[in-house]
């Protein structure tokens, strides 16, 4: 139909008028509500799913998890609300386990290197078995290496090594020997205590990024929620890096690296001087000191000069933690300097001054749990022990090394030359789900099962204050989709040693049969016979008994503390010089374990929001002075090597300190990890705390230079435009007792004042300035 211009205009006018009239007639509201005439798939699909209770051995803290299975496939994980460790809480990385299991680069076939100079090639399971049998025959000198865990797997590792007169060693990249040493010397326990954050009024932590990933984040995350519930608990944190834990504290203290112990003693100094706690607690504490007093130099004024932390913060924290139930603990970088043991020791001793040991809301000493068929270790061997061990390998004194679950070649510093050591071992047998640098340097590569396919049992670390044994049960079949060809590590070792009879499944059954016998009809499962007991254990994800605890009254404290400060960072005010303190930190990729998991790669880091890359966090002001911009390619050089990473000028990093995440830069991984980013672990100096032999992984110094070039930083920050709001919104902040409405009014008033101020000073900015770049005297700064 042809329409001329006049007719078109006429029709348009009538349509518009019609639309107005139509709208004005006010159609009943319900007629505007349109329901989809077809059901959405979400309305229709209904499979029958099953949920199984198991525990997550990948995380080593023995968290209880529930796994959703549908059509023989794993669909989802969540925290087991029944389990005493995490009480339904889940690590932020829990779902990553799905893609460890279902991964396109998962190994399905064994690999064999027929000669030291040969290449790794696929082989049959039969041939692999034959080679393993030869390499582990009686008379061979064998070393077995796993990650630290006390489990049925640890037990068989130990037993097998012993059966060949060999050794069992545990390894973790960021060694925590100082933590264990300090705890043992103070409380004579090998167990990490239960930190009763849930019932505490005040929490003071040092170095340990317990909200994100330190030791048992699901347990601590649940407790953090409880700390902030009801009468809101106070929380202060001491760490040079602005971790998620730092970000969530009420008071964050950022000291020069290595001076954390000074802050702990300064807090003690204030408490004693101002008599903030009962005299008997002060005497208990002082009686343990070498001269019965804190030496001169720990008053807040002096400590401020040494640590860079304002004395007002030290005094405020001292006063806060002296009231109510308080807990103080340390870990992470605080324990990882060459004076890490001193720092850790000084921090934990504060609990004695506060009367927090063995009390609700304080440090609860865990029972020493020893179980038949559960072995291994809850702590790794120290750097010193590893140096001695690698010397043995290098000298050709070891015939066979069996490695399970750790990537030594990726995570040990260059200075240890682990690849050189492995080359001198006759046969290296490695179990793994996907290729990594250690597997690549091995002679026999065994495609390992995941915890979804395997029986197991583990003593969680740390325990929740009482005896707990977690159960791991297979939730999918080994030959199921995406996982065919996997070989059980435990069953392999059991088959090689006839004196240890049975299978992995029967081993686990024996553990819980023993629990049944010892339970005396108490604890989490009460049953009339062993099989019913095992059924109960499988339903709940383990067995625990609240009546089996450590006697808190019998905690023995060491007679004297050694408060000799051997602070190697006394010259740490060289913050604007060429040398920077390098603090590595783990986040979503762990020590590289999750690097080939796409979910882990894309899970952006909480503070920088960066993903898929290696970045270096450098103080923003310092970066500005050095002319460094975001995305600049930076070279970091230490005495152990050099890496390149992208600059991230960070508003909350201690000047003179740079922080780099671990996990990237693997030379041999899968499609998501290989040749991506840089491996910061390689350039760590092989320094150790001479008092403990612990790896001083936060003591490395590096030079920092622009290497030329700039890349777009892959980060989430800036993906979404900031909200056009006034200061304080959308994250509205209230003072205790203040209502949201009052805070909004206050913000609005301040904002109006700032606008008036700018207008009277001729500043052209007006309403709706949403970019957070200028709010007069306000400090709000939005980054999205």
């Amino acid at each position, binding site marked *: 139909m042809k329409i001329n211009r006049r007719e078109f205009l006429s029709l348009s006018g009538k349509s518009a008028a019609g639309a107005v009239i139509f709208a004005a007639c006010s159609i009943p509201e*319900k007629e505007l509500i*349109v329901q989809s005439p077809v059901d959405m798939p979400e309305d229709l699909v209904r499979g029958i799913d099953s949920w199984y209770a198991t525990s997550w051995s990948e995380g080593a803290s023995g968290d209880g998890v529930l796994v959703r299975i549908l059509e023989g496939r794993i669909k989802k994980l969540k925290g087991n609300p029944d389990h005493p460790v995490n009480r339904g809480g*889940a690590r*932020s990385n829990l779902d990553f386990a799905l893609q460890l299991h279902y991964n396109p680069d998962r190994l399905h076939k064994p690999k064999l290197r027929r000669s030291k100079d040969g290449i790794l090639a696929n082989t049959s399971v039969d041939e692999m078995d034959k080679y393993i049998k030869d390499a582990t025959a009686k008379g061979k000198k064998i070393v077995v290496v796993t990650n630290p865990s006390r489990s049925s797997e640890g037990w068989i590792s130990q037993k097998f090594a012993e059966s060949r007169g060999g050794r069992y060693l545990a390894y973790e990249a960021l060694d925590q020997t100082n933590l264990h040493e300090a705890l043992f010397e103070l409380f004579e326990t090998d167990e990490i205590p239960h930190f009763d954050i849930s019932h505490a009024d005040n929490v003071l932590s040092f170095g340990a990024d317990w909200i994100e990933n330190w030791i048992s984040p699901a347990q601590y995350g649940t407790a*953090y929620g409880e700390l902030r519930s009801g009468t809101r608990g106070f929380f202060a944190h001491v760490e040079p890096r602005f971790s998620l834990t730092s970000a969530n504290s009420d008071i964050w203290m950022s000291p020069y690296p290595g001076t954390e112990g000074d802050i702990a003693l300064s807090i003690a100094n204030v408490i004693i001087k101002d008599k903030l706690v009962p005299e008997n607690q002060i005497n208990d504490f002082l009686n343990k000191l070498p001269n019965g007093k804190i030496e001169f130099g720990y008053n807040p004024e002096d400590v401020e000069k040494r640590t860079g932390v304002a*004395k007002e913060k030290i005094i405020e924290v001292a006063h806060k933690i002296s009231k109510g139930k308080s807990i103080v603990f340390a870990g992470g970088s605080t324990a990882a300097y060459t004076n890490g043991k001193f720092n850790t020791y000084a921090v934990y001793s504060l609990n004695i001054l506060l009367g927090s040991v063995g009390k609700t809301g304080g440090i609860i000493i865990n029972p020493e749990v020893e179980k038949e068929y559960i072995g291994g270790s809850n702590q790794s061997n120290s750097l010193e022990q590893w140096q001695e061990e690698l010397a043995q390998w290098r000298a050709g004194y070891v015939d066979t090394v069996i490695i399970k679950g750790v990537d030594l070649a990726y995570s040990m510093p260059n200075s240890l030359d682990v690849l050189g050591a492995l080359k001198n071992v006759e046969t290296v047998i490695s179990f793994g789900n996907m290729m990594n640098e250690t597997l690549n340097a091995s002679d026999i590569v065994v495609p390992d099962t995941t915890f979804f396919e395997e029986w197991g049992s583990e003593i969680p670390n740390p325990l929740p204050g009482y005896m707990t044994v977690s159960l791991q049960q297979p939730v999918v079949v080994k030959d199921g989709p*995406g996982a065919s060809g996997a070989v059980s590590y435990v069953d392999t070792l059991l088959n090689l040693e006839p004196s240890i009879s049975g299978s992995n499944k029967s081993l686990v059954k024996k553990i819980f049969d023993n629990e049944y016998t010892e339970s005396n009809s108490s604890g989490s499962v009460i049953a009339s016979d062993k099989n019913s007991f095992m059924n109960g254990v499988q339903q709940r994800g383990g067995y625990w008994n609240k009546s089996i605890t450590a006697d808190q009254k019998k905690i023995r404290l060491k007679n004297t503390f050694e408060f000799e400060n051997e602070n190697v960072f006394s010259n740490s005010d060289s913050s604007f010089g060429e040398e920077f303190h390098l603090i590595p930190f783990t986040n979503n990729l762990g020590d590289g374990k999750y690097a080939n998991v796409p979910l882990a790669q*894309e899970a952006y880091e909480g503070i920088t929001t960066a993903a898929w890359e290696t970045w270096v966090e450098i103080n923003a002001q310092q970066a500005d002075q050095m002319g460094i911009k975001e995305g600049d390619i930076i070279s970091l050089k230490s005495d152990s090597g050099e890496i390149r990473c992208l600059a991230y000028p960070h508003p909350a990093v201690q000047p003179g300190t740079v922080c780099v995440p671990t996990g990237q830069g693997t030379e041999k991984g899968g499609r998501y990890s290989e040749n991506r980013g840089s491996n910061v672990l390689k350039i760590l100096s092989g320094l150790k705390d001479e008092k403990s032999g612990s790896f001083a992984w936060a003591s490395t110094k590096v030079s920092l230079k622009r290497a030329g070039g700039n890349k777009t930083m892959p980060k*989430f920050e800036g993906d979404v435009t900031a909200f056009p709001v006034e200061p304080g919104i959308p994250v509205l*902040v209230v003072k205790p007792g203040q209502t949201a409405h009052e805070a909004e009014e206050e913000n609005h008033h301040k904002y109006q004042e700032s606008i008036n101020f700018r207008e009277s000073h001729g500043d052209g900015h007006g309403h709706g300035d949403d970019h957070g770049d200028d709010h007069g005297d306000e400090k709000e700064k939005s980054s999205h």
Partner: protein
Amino acid sequence: MVAEKNRSWGMVIDTDKCNGCSGCVTACQVENNIPLNDQNKFERGRVMSWIRIERYWEGEFPNVKARFIPIMCQHCENAPCEPVCPVYATYHNNEGLNVQVYNRCVGTRYCANGCPYIVRMFNYWEPTWPEEIRNHLNPDVTIRSRGIMEKCSMCMQRIKRGERNAGDQLQDGEIKTACQEACTTGAITFGDLNDPESEVSILAKSDRKYSLMPQLNTNPNVVYLATVDPYKDKNLGEKAKTNEH
């Protein structure tokens, strides 16, 4: 006509408990079959995520603070995205949810333009997963194809499953969204805002409650509780320079 239901599903998010761990983001991604965000998507500002954690800076070193807030579709009662859709692909259902019908969506992106919270995501690419990873996709949730819009459904599949399983006996707290389940600190609470005794209703009456962009009168079904800071407007040991621009 729409069958009458008395429910109004909603959420309360306590920003004082949110520690910014992003566990909710990963859990949502797995539950709702959200495609992989590769490096390219991060670099191009095209990250697909039904829930995101925003981090805001405040102050300067050493008195710097970071604030976190999880943001997802606010399921507004007066949703700006609904009237602009030419094909009724987005509408308000009878349980208080803003619903996206994928097979109606023609990808005009008017709804995304209209949404002040920037929570609607457009599929610029066909979602792909390696065969192995497809094993863990959730069969309860449709995979959205290239060219259409998607957003938080408040885990409608879980709501439907919960309603079907419970019938008339649905209890408060029985249905949990994936983000809520993954939130270790308990910052997220989900439930029926029409039930005055539900936990979500009780929390939504807190003195700390506020909504995002109340001036727009969108009346969201997501209520936030303000962060508590005992040191608000106070700097202990003022060593930091003031923010002078």
